[in-house]
Protein backbone atom coordinates (compact mmCIF):
# COMPACT_ATOMS: atom_id res chain seq x y z
CA UNK A 1 0.00 0.00 0.00
CA UNK A 2 1.06 3.59 -0.35
CA UNK A 3 1.80 5.15 2.98
CA UNK A 4 2.57 8.65 4.00
CA UNK A 5 6.12 9.18 5.13
CA UNK A 6 6.94 11.41 8.06
CA UNK A 7 10.14 13.32 8.40
CA UNK A 8 12.16 13.42 10.57
CA UNK A 9 11.91 9.99 12.17
CA UNK A 10 12.90 11.47 15.51
CA UNK A 11 13.02 14.97 16.91
CA UNK A 12 14.33 16.20 20.25
CA UNK A 13 13.66 19.73 21.47
CA UNK A 14 13.39 21.68 24.71
CA UNK A 15 10.21 22.94 26.28
CA UNK A 16 9.06 26.20 24.78
CA UNK A 17 10.55 25.51 21.36
CA UNK A 18 8.50 24.81 18.26
CA UNK A 19 8.39 21.36 16.68
CA UNK A 20 7.81 20.82 12.98
CA UNK A 21 7.06 17.47 11.41
CA UNK A 22 6.56 16.80 7.74
CA UNK A 23 4.55 14.24 5.83
CA UNK A 24 4.73 13.29 2.18
CA UNK A 25 2.20 11.11 0.40
CA UNK A 26 1.85 9.61 -3.05
CA UNK A 27 -1.70 9.80 -4.35
CA UNK A 28 -4.40 12.45 -4.58
CA UNK A 29 -6.38 12.88 -1.39
CA UNK A 30 -9.68 14.17 -0.04
CA UNK A 31 -8.13 14.93 3.30
CA UNK A 32 -5.10 14.29 5.43
CA UNK A 33 -5.22 13.58 9.14
CA UNK A 34 -2.69 13.82 11.96
CA UNK A 35 -2.69 11.57 15.02
CA UNK A 36 -0.69 11.40 18.23
CA UNK A 37 0.34 8.28 20.12
CA UNK A 38 1.65 8.37 23.63
CA UNK A 39 4.01 5.58 24.53
CA UNK A 40 2.35 2.16 24.34
CA UNK A 41 -1.14 3.56 23.87
CA UNK A 42 -3.70 3.92 21.11
CA UNK A 43 -3.69 6.80 18.66
CA UNK A 44 -5.61 10.02 19.21
CA UNK A 45 -6.91 12.15 16.37
CA UNK A 46 -5.48 15.68 16.34
CA UNK A 47 -6.62 17.44 13.21
CA UNK A 48 -8.03 16.89 9.73
CA UNK A 49 -7.26 19.14 6.79
CA UNK A 50 -9.20 18.90 3.56
CA UNK A 51 -7.63 18.99 0.12
CA UNK A 52 -9.08 22.44 -0.59
CA UNK A 53 -7.57 23.89 2.59
CA UNK A 54 -4.03 25.20 2.83
CA UNK A 55 -3.75 25.78 6.55
CA UNK A 56 -5.63 24.86 9.68
CA UNK A 57 -5.16 25.68 13.35
CA UNK A 58 -6.21 23.95 16.53
CA UNK A 59 -4.84 25.39 19.75
CA UNK A 60 -1.04 25.16 19.55
CA UNK A 61 -1.23 23.02 16.42
CA UNK A 62 -0.87 24.38 12.93
CA UNK A 63 -1.18 22.12 9.91
CA UNK A 64 -0.39 23.08 6.34
CA UNK A 65 -1.14 21.18 3.18
CA UNK A 66 0.46 21.57 -0.24
CA UNK A 67 -1.32 19.28 -2.67
CA UNK A 68 0.97 20.25 -5.53
CA UNK A 69 3.91 18.86 -3.59
CA UNK A 70 1.86 16.13 -1.93
CA UNK A 71 3.10 17.18 1.46
CA UNK A 72 1.83 18.39 4.80
CA UNK A 73 3.46 19.76 7.91
CA UNK A 74 2.45 19.77 11.56
CA UNK A 75 3.77 22.57 13.73
CA UNK A 76 3.47 22.43 17.51
CA UNK A 77 4.19 25.80 19.03
CA UNK A 78 5.57 26.41 22.53
CA UNK A 79 5.99 22.69 23.10
CA UNK A 80 5.57 21.08 26.50
CA UNK A 81 6.93 17.88 28.02
CA UNK A 82 3.41 16.45 27.67
CA UNK A 83 3.75 16.75 23.87
CA UNK A 84 6.30 13.93 23.97
CA UNK A 85 4.74 11.31 21.72
CA UNK A 86 4.81 9.84 18.24
CA UNK A 87 2.97 11.72 15.53
CA UNK A 88 1.47 10.11 12.44
CA UNK A 89 -0.07 11.44 9.27
CA UNK A 90 -2.78 9.42 7.56
CA UNK A 91 -4.47 9.42 4.18
CA UNK A 92 -7.26 7.32 2.71
CA UNK A 93 -6.51 3.68 2.06
CA UNK A 94 -7.92 2.10 -1.08
CA UNK A 95 -10.71 3.29 -3.36
CA UNK A 96 -13.47 3.21 -0.75
CA UNK A 97 -11.66 5.61 1.55
CA UNK A 98 -13.09 3.79 4.57
CA UNK A 99 -9.70 2.91 6.00
CA UNK A 100 -6.54 4.96 6.50
CA UNK A 101 -2.91 4.56 5.56
CA UNK A 102 -0.59 5.65 8.33
CA UNK A 103 3.00 6.71 7.96
CA UNK A 104 5.72 5.36 10.21
CA UNK A 105 5.59 8.38 12.44
CA UNK A 106 7.84 11.02 13.95
CA UNK A 107 8.96 10.42 17.51
CA UNK A 108 9.04 13.72 19.39
CA UNK A 109 10.88 14.15 22.68
CA UNK A 110 10.36 17.39 24.58
CA UNK A 111 12.72 17.84 27.49
CA UNK A 112 12.13 20.25 30.40
Amino acid at each position, binding site marked *: SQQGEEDPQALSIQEGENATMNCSYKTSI*NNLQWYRQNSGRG*LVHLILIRSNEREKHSGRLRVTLDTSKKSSSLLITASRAADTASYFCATAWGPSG*YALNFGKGTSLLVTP
Partner: protein
Amino acid sequence: DVKVTQSSRYLVKRTGEKVFLECVQDMDHENMFWYRQDPGLGLRLIYFSYDVKMKEKGDIPEGYSVSREKKERFSLILESASTNQTSMYLCASSLLRSRRTGGDSYEQYFGPGTRLTVT
Protein backbone atom coordinates in the same frame (compact mmCIF):
# COMPACT_ATOMS: atom_id res chain seq x y z
CA ASP B 1 -17.19 10.18 26.06
CA VAL B 2 -16.50 7.98 23.08
CA LYS B 3 -14.89 4.70 23.81
CA VAL B 4 -13.19 1.80 22.08
CA THR B 5 -12.20 -1.03 24.37
CA GLN B 6 -10.03 -4.04 23.74
CA SER B 7 -10.35 -7.23 25.73
CA SER B 8 -6.76 -7.41 26.96
CA ARG B 9 -3.83 -5.01 27.30
CA TYR B 10 -1.28 -7.81 27.41
CA LEU B 11 -1.57 -11.37 26.16
CA VAL B 12 0.91 -14.23 26.01
CA LYS B 13 0.12 -17.24 23.85
CA ARG B 14 1.95 -20.27 22.59
CA THR B 15 2.75 -21.07 18.98
CA GLY B 16 -0.14 -22.87 17.32
CA GLU B 17 -2.82 -21.61 19.68
CA LYS B 18 -5.99 -20.01 18.35
CA VAL B 19 -6.15 -16.44 19.61
CA PHE B 20 -9.15 -14.13 19.82
CA LEU B 21 -8.75 -10.38 20.19
CA GLU B 22 -11.98 -8.57 20.94
CA CYS B 23 -12.86 -4.96 20.28
CA VAL B 24 -16.01 -3.12 21.33
CA GLN B 25 -17.09 0.43 20.52
CA ASP B 26 -19.98 2.37 22.00
CA MET B 27 -20.32 5.07 19.36
CA ASP B 28 -22.62 3.28 16.89
CA HIS B 29 -19.87 3.51 14.26
CA GLU B 30 -20.26 1.59 11.02
CA ASN B 31 -16.54 1.13 10.36
CA MET B 32 -14.20 -0.93 12.48
CA PHE B 33 -10.53 -1.70 11.87
CA TRP B 34 -7.71 -3.88 13.03
CA TYR B 35 -4.09 -2.74 12.69
CA ARG B 36 -0.83 -4.13 13.90
CA GLN B 37 2.04 -1.89 14.87
CA ASP B 38 5.67 -2.94 14.76
CA PRO B 39 8.82 -0.88 15.33
CA GLY B 40 10.07 0.64 12.10
CA LEU B 41 6.98 -0.47 10.16
CA GLY B 42 4.31 1.83 11.54
CA LEU B 43 0.67 0.80 11.53
CA ARG B 44 -0.42 -1.75 8.98
CA LEU B 45 -4.04 -2.52 8.19
CA ILE B 46 -5.04 -6.15 8.69
CA TYR B 47 -8.80 -6.13 8.09
CA PHE B 48 -11.67 -3.72 8.29
CA SER B 49 -15.43 -3.93 8.32
CA TYR B 50 -17.95 -1.34 7.17
CA ASP B 51 -21.07 -3.19 8.26
CA VAL B 52 -22.21 -6.22 10.22
CA LYS B 53 -20.97 -9.43 8.59
CA MET B 54 -19.00 -7.41 6.02
CA LYS B 55 -15.23 -7.47 5.93
CA GLU B 56 -12.43 -6.41 3.65
CA LYS B 57 -8.79 -7.39 3.60
CA GLY B 58 -6.18 -4.82 4.37
CA ASP B 59 -2.50 -4.96 3.54
CA ILE B 60 -1.54 -7.95 5.68
CA PRO B 61 -4.52 -10.33 6.15
CA GLU B 62 -2.52 -13.56 5.93
CA GLY B 63 -2.76 -15.62 9.08
CA TYR B 64 -5.72 -13.62 10.39
CA SER B 65 -9.49 -13.70 10.12
CA VAL B 66 -12.18 -11.45 11.52
CA SER B 67 -15.74 -11.64 12.71
CA ARG B 68 -18.38 -8.97 13.01
CA GLU B 69 -21.67 -10.39 14.19
CA LYS B 70 -22.83 -7.22 15.94
CA LYS B 71 -22.28 -3.62 14.99
CA GLU B 72 -20.40 -2.76 18.17
CA ARG B 73 -18.02 -5.73 18.20
CA PHE B 74 -15.17 -6.66 15.87
CA SER B 75 -13.00 -9.67 16.59
CA LEU B 76 -9.59 -10.52 15.23
CA ILE B 77 -8.71 -14.20 15.12
CA LEU B 78 -5.26 -15.70 14.77
CA GLU B 79 -6.06 -19.17 13.54
CA SER B 80 -2.71 -20.65 14.54
CA ALA B 81 -0.50 -18.14 16.30
CA SER B 82 3.10 -17.84 15.18
CA THR B 83 6.03 -15.94 16.65
CA ASN B 84 5.98 -13.45 13.78
CA GLN B 85 2.55 -12.35 14.96
CA THR B 86 4.05 -10.98 18.15
CA SER B 87 3.02 -7.35 17.91
CA MET B 88 0.87 -4.52 19.22
CA TYR B 89 -2.68 -4.84 17.90
CA LEU B 90 -4.81 -1.74 17.64
CA CYS B 91 -8.54 -1.61 17.03
CA ALA B 92 -10.28 1.51 15.75
CA SER B 93 -13.72 2.64 14.67
CA SER B 94 -15.15 5.48 12.62
CA LEU B 95 -18.28 6.73 10.96
CA LEU B 96 -18.89 5.51 7.44
CA ARG B 97 -17.57 7.77 4.71
CA SER B 98 -20.48 9.29 2.88
CA ARG B 99 -20.59 8.01 -0.69
CA ARG B 100 -23.47 10.35 -1.51
CA THR B 101 -21.59 13.50 -0.64
CA GLY B 102 -18.19 12.14 -1.65
CA GLY B 103 -17.26 13.02 1.85
CA ASP B 104 -14.10 12.71 3.79
CA SER B 105 -12.68 9.71 5.48
CA TYR B 106 -13.71 10.28 9.05
CA GLU B 107 -11.43 10.40 12.03
CA GLN B 108 -10.76 7.09 13.69
CA TYR B 109 -11.08 6.37 17.38
CA PHE B 110 -8.58 3.90 18.74
CA GLY B 111 -8.59 1.45 21.58
CA PRO B 112 -5.63 1.25 23.98
CA GLY B 113 -4.06 -1.67 22.14
CA THR B 114 -3.26 -5.29 22.95
CA ARG B 115 0.37 -6.28 23.17
CA LEU B 116 0.47 -9.90 22.06
CA THR B 117 3.49 -12.10 22.62
CA VAL B 118 3.61 -15.49 20.94
CA THR B 119 6.22 -17.84 22.38
